């Protein structure tokens, strides 16, 4: 692969916002993760990609502080993670919206938990609701929204707490293909405009290659990093050209070649 740099050691001049050191996670006798170390460069989007059961969501939840690793540690900005913190925000696969609360109350939930006053937090929430394109739906309820719109609410909630690291657990897997493409384009703009570090779990090869600055390819049983891929060329060519860029197509093929033996 001439066009993509394949290098498990730290790359570029970007420093790491998040690093995981020798993470292992056992559930009883089952080894979910073994001795996994990864660096997540600041301001970039890193995908965790792998077949189902490879522990990518487990790793993300360990970074979030929702799960405790059996051994090893996670550092965010040099500080060891002991639980959820204000420096990280989570976007859930099933949206995890409160069905009895309006959009604006859902988006403001994280700020409410930080003890911010009602009018202040709703001003901030309203700003992010507009930013994700849901202006006018502030007082709707989740059941009145489509799947795609619900995930925009989840995204606005994560953005509004202004965390440096955004953790996204297969955020687009429950929305339809067309909405998903729009989301992917919006996500690229978001990475560009917000100075945040994104960690993105997906099982879609095309999606990972399309949105990522860095792809960590995980293989299962027990889960380990098989390869780190950094697409280099096509990102600057504009969203419309990525899917027909030769490098994009090569990387997709290469990843499939590594994964195909692990898919039942």
């Amino acid at each position, binding site marked *: 692969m001439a066009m993509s740099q394949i290098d498990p050691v730290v790359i570029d001049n970007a420093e790491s916002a998040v690093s995981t050191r020798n993470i292992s996670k056992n559930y009883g006798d089952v080894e979910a993760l073994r001795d996994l170390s990864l660096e997540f460069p600041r301001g970039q989007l890193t995908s965790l990609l792998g077949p189902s059961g490879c522990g990518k969501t487990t790793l993300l939840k360990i970074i979030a*502080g929702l799960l405790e690793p059996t051994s090893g540690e996670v550092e965010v900005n040099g500080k060891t993670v002991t639980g959820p913190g204000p420096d990280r925000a*989570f976007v859930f696969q099933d949206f*995890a919206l409160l069905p009895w609360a309006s959009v604006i109350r859902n988006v403001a939930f*994280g700020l409410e938990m930080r003890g911010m006053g009602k009018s202040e937090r709703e001003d901030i929430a309203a700003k992010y609701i507009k930013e994700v394109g849901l202006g006018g739906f502030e007082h709707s309820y989740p059941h009145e929204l489509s799947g795609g719109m619900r995930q925009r609410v989840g995204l606005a909630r994560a953005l509004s707490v202004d965390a440096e690291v955004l953790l996204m657990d297969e955020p687009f897997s429950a929305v339809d293909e067309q909405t998903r493409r729009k989301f992917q384009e919006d996500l690229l703009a978001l990475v560009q405009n917000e100075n945040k570090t994104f960690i993105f779990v997906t099982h879609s090869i095309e999606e990972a290659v399309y949105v990522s600055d860095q792809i960590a390819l995980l293989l299962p049983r027990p889960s380990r990093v098989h390869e780190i891929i950094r697409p280099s060329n096509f990102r600057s060519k504009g969203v419309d050209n990525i899917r027909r860029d030769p490098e994009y197509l090569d990387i997709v093929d290469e990843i499939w070649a590594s994964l195909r033996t692990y898919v039942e």
Partner: protein
Amino acid sequence: MANRALYLKFLSAVLLFGAWEVAGRIPVSFAFPTFLESMGALFRMIGDGTMATAYAETLRPLVVGVAISAFLGIAIGLWVGLSSFFEWLFSPIFIVMQAAPLAALIPLLVLAYGIGLTSKVLVVCIMAMPVIVLNTAGAVRNTPESMKEMGKAFLATDLAIILKIVIPAASPVIFAGLRLGISAGFIGAILAELKITPTGVGDIITYSRSIADYPSMYAAIFSIILLAVLFLNLLEKIETVLFKGNQRGYVSD
């Protein structure tokens, strides 16, 4: 199309009451008055105030018993749902109570507490409480895991997770449990009046049976069933309005 449903409901009521009328006219039994006779007796008793006094009497143990069961039942249910120790300690009792014919306890309650209001309230409580406790506990335990994780990820305290996520998420099922509890409470209240001492509506039923005034007896029975069904339907309507957007999917009996 909405009209069709309404017409059919009306038609089905006419058919059932018509069958009642015809069976009463044949008559199928000396103790089977016609529909119109029974309705006549009903309106007579409403008119002369018999019904109002009777229901004042009947509803007292029901209201007190349901209030106690709701308060204690939800409190215990929350406790059982949130703590694995209390679940281990209490849930077997309520599971057995839910399956068991608790009515069999009535003779014992009468021996211990006499034939007054206390016994009747207790009858309503033992009928109504198990389903309220079990529904509350089940609902609390079944709070979607990702919602609780969401709370943790956004730095909610344990108390905030219970108050802002677990209880609101559980409230539709808790409310449904209350409705089922009230339905069982009606059974208990009537059972108490028929078995312990005839008061209120139970008195009308027992007394008119003893003097063979069957229209009054049927009217009293008709009225209590109508009241219970209307009230429970009202609760169900409130439930749908109140929890319109919430996810459902829990059913229990």
